[in-house]
């Protein structure tokens, strides 16, 4: 479904992503595990095609066998790719309802929207609240996750989906990922937390800008504990620790 071929990305001659090649299969859930600063969020932005990321990397990206390397963020979104970024933006004056429906472009009744909100632990009182500083970061995060469920994407990148959500249990996040999966989405979760990583079918360890290991989440967690706890080579991997995963 999503194929990455030799993706590299650097800023000011500093390598952030290093020759990544991988195929993400349709309908599976993946976790990308790694310490802070290893390039996890950059990886998500390269897939989404954010400004400054698309066209500025080497390699190719194929989505459902279509080369999307040169496609803009909107073009990729229209193909069915979306993302929930780590820190959702604030929108002065914009209601939760307008945000979830993209200004009523997505047709849902209030009752249906409330059911979506309930999945992320929010209630009807949020529907007409504003997605601005009157909502906490955690509340905006929940609304962002709610939005991804409504969009029913083919592929979604969830960047640190639990960040800022102190009270959110892993089971709630698991439920969200299960719903996305039931809707047919391929889910890529970016995280530095093993508890979140285990919610996926497959896991990848990102270290020094490349995938060093792949496998079942508990296997990768084990590797993560072994080699990442004392790792001081962020964006500068020690070669003998890399297995060079290519799928």
């Amino acid at each position, binding site marked *: 479904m999503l194929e990455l071929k030799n993706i590299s990305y650097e800023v000011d001659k500093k390598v952030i992503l290093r020759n990544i090649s991988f195929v993400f299969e349709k309908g599976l859930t993946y976790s990308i595990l790694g310490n802070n600063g290893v390039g996890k969020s950059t990886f998500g932005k390269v897939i*989404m095609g*954010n*400004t400054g990321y698309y066209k500025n990397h080497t390699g190719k990206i194929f989505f459902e066998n279509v080369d999307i390397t040169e496609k*803009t*963020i*909107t073009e*990729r*979104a*229209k193909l069915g790719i*979306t*993302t929930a*970024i780590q820190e*959702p*933006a*604030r*929108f*002065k*004056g*914009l*209601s939760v309802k*307008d945000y979830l429906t*993209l*200004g009523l*472009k997505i047709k849902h009744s209030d009752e249906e929207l409330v059911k979506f909100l309930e999945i992320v632990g929010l209630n009807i009182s949020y529907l007409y609240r*504003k*997605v601005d500083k009157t909502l906490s970061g955690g509340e905006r995060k929940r609304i962002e996750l709610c*939005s991804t469920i409504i*969009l029913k994407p083919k592929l979604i990148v969830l960047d640190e989906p639990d960040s800022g959500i102190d009270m959110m249990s892993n089971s709630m996040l698991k439920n969200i990922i299960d719903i996305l999966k039931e809707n047919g989405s391929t889910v890529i979760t970016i995280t530095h937390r093993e508890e979140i990583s285990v919610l996926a079918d497959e896991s990848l360890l990102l270290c020094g800008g490349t995938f060093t290991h792949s496998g079942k989440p508990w296997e990768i967690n084990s590797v993560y504990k072994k080699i990442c706890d004392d790792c001081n080579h962020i964006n500068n991997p020690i070669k003998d620790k890399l297995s060079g995963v290519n799928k």
Partner: protein
Amino acid sequence: MELQRDHSKEFEAISKAYEKAGGDISGLLSKDIVSVIVSGNQIIGRNTVDGVEISADIKDNKVKLNFVMKDGVKLNKPIHMCVGYLKDFGEQLLDMNFEIGDNCNANFVSHCSFPAAKDILHKMDAVLKIGKNSKVTYKDEHYHNEEGLVNLDASYFTTIGENSSFDNRFNLTKTRVGNLKILMDVEILKDAKCYIESKVKEKKDDKVEIKEIMRLTGENSSGIAKTYVIAQDNSYGKVINEAYGIGNNASGHIECDEIIVGDGVDLSTIPLLNVKNASAELTHEASVGRINSDQLETLMSKGLDQEDATELIIKGMFS
């Protein structure tokens, strides 16, 4: 509604403009509400209820309106002000005087429309005095003209009495602006509260100058002044927000957000905070620039193109 003689056709025309501006004509016609209809330099209709006196005079081609609300009058229904100018060229000069007594509740809803304007001047000087323990809101919606030129020059001088509140919202976002010059000068007395907000969307060669002044003279007085301007094309905008902390424990906040859409815009914001009492506290926030890229890309990652994403963000700001 007492409709002045020989004005039925004009009323029909102005009511159409009024509805276009977002007004509800049924509100104007109801007998149990207070309403005033000004067309050009004439008052073509007015209605009032017990406790509210409206008198009008036309002198030197200027409409002078006196509005007096007696102590203790609390109106649940809004007071409708319909102001319009149906000609293409000319001047509309207004002199408004509002006196709101003690312990009153008044909610003004004003719609100003200039649907045929090619080059007109709408000049208004308004004085509003609010007594003690009263609550007043004033919502002012403007509907100008996409092709013609409206020169709007309005000054508002308001005094908010002890323990009273005043909420004023000016909105000109549905049409082109033309030339807009607004001065809002508010004095806030002891324990009184003030909220003033202006929202303007300008384009082409529109010119906007807004000056908002809050004088926090009373002990424990508080006020917030917010201005939002979206500027496109070659439009010009200058916003001056001033707050003066004079009374004990006075607190004020001024905020100005100006968003640029395009390359030919000339926008500026000038905040002034002046404290004359050590216990007073004033703050301000200001930003001038393009729409935040995180906001844009968040919406674009959901499938909106850049124009639609921009429109939705602006819709939020003007909601």
